[in-house]
């Protein structure tokens, strides 16, 4: 089985502080990988490296077998917890933007029939995330949940190979969060997406993911805690539907977010 995304011996270091050490990972196409771990365990660094926002100090990342350019690109979509929609564009404008960039390098705007086609495509995508009635609102006029729906539609219209979610539902209230879980599961299966999601919420990680990675430090030097980096300490494959529920019951989680059963 060939992996869509492969990390080979990735190290991330800031000065003498080691954040990630010797991280190896293969992500298959169509999987939904949840990444959990305590604060400071390198979840965000991991995501930035995959996104191309940051270059690892050692190691190699392959996307479809080819080395990844050290820059963000349209093959990897992203939804951040905040600030991932443009406040000066309407919902439709935000969504069409991705199409305009690809088709009009100089003006980044479309006209005539090309514009109508792009608007129709964007409208279809917005209907799919449930924003069909809010095409002409500005982000500031919408709730947090609606803004995250928009951010997802914006990313999906580029048909990214991988969708990266950085605590996408962390700032939403519980009811809205449940709606968003249903939505992202539906989009994942409808569009055959490959998703990597970083989250603080263990329950969310298990209920959404097909695979859960826990990042943490394997070793700990009490005199120089920054000299050991984190890596994937647990890699749990979930068989969707039935096994997700059982996994939730059988695994106990301590305050640091570590799996006690596995550690014992």
């Amino acid at each position, binding site marked *: 089985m060939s992996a869509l995304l492969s990390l080979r011996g990735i190290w991330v270091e800031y000065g003498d502080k080691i954040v990630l050490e010797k991280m190896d990972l293969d992500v298959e196409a169509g999987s939904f990988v949840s990444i959990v771990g305590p604060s400071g365990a390198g979840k965000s660094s991991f995501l930035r490296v995959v*996104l191309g926002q940051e270059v690892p100090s050692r190691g190699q990342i392959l996307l479809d077998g080819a080395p990844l350019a050290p*820059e963000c690109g349209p093959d990897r979509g992203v939804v951040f917890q905040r*600030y991932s929609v443009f*406040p*000066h564009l309407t919902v439709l404008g935000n969504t069409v933007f991705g199409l305009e*960039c690809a088709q009009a*390098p*100089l003006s980044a705007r479309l006209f005539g029939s090309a514009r109508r086609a792009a608007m129709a495509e964007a409208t279809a995508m917005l209907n799919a995330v449930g924003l069909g009635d809010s095409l002409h609102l500005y982000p*500031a006029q919408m709730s947090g949940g609606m803004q995250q729906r928009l951010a997802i539609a914006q990313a999906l219209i580029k048909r990214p190979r991988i969708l990266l979610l950085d605590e996408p539902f962390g700032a939403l209230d519980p009811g809205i969060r449940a709606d968003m879980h249903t939505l992202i599961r539906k989009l994942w299966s409808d569009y055959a997406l490959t998703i990597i999601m970083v989250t603080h919420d263990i329950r969310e990680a298990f209920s959404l993911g097909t695979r859960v990675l826990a990042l943490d430090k394997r070793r700990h030097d009490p005199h120089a805690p920054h000299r050991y980096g984190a890596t994937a300490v647990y890699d749990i494959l979930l068989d969707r539907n039935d096994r997700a529920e059982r996994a939730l019951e059988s695994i106990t989680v301590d305050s640091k977010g570590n799996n006690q059963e596995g550690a014992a």
Partner: protein
Amino acid sequence: MRWVNRQLRRPERLFLGGVPIALLLLLYLFAAAQRHSLNPADKILPLPSGMIQSMSVLMSQPDPLSGRLIFLADTLASLERLGLGIGIATLMALVVGLALGVLPPVRATFGPLVTGIAVIPPIALLPILFIALGLGETAKVALIVLGIAPVMVRDIAAHVAALPREQIIKAQTLGAGSWQIMIRVALPQAMPRLLQTVRLSLGPAWVFLISAEAIASDVGLGYRIFLVRRYLSMDVIIPYVAWIALLAILMDLALATLSRRLFPWAHGANH
């Protein structure tokens, strides 16, 4: 009720806002009347009748040398210089500020230069401008531009550089290049700030305009004020100053309205 919680209705606000202005006017009238009762030829605190009289001469009778109505010619000349200066400075702020804010190599190259120019007191450059550009219009416009542009450039650059990193990353994942990010992400979000910066620069722009006109000119609001100063003509100076204040307030209001009209998304959640 605590004063921090006291919200006033619109008529109350208008009334309260008018009170200090009215008091100041009354105080002036009282002092002027006092002085005129002692000396009917007093020039220091002219009465409104005196101001109206001298201003109507400046407004209606053509200047014997140039054949133009003095007040109108002064206003037009000053507004033209001010408009040119602010226009050029605004354009520079937009182009240079955007490039400095979005592109790190440009910031590294020109950032120190812009900072260096910004700390020079513009009036100290006035002799250089007069020597290099002559005493004509160019030097006056150049003084306004040099005076306000560096601050505006730095303000726009800082505003653009402070856009959330997430937005710039997101734009790149949507396929945008540097140019597209500049014109579609940074430029529109810099526009409301640009109007704000122009509003704040109006004050300094007037200072530099009046200074340039006071030193070398033959027409303009600042020229007139400094010319009639020799005759202690407060009856002309005070109306001119009031007129400058009125023009500045009108420009400020126009810019504020323009910003709300053009960029509703930048003015609060409920537009």
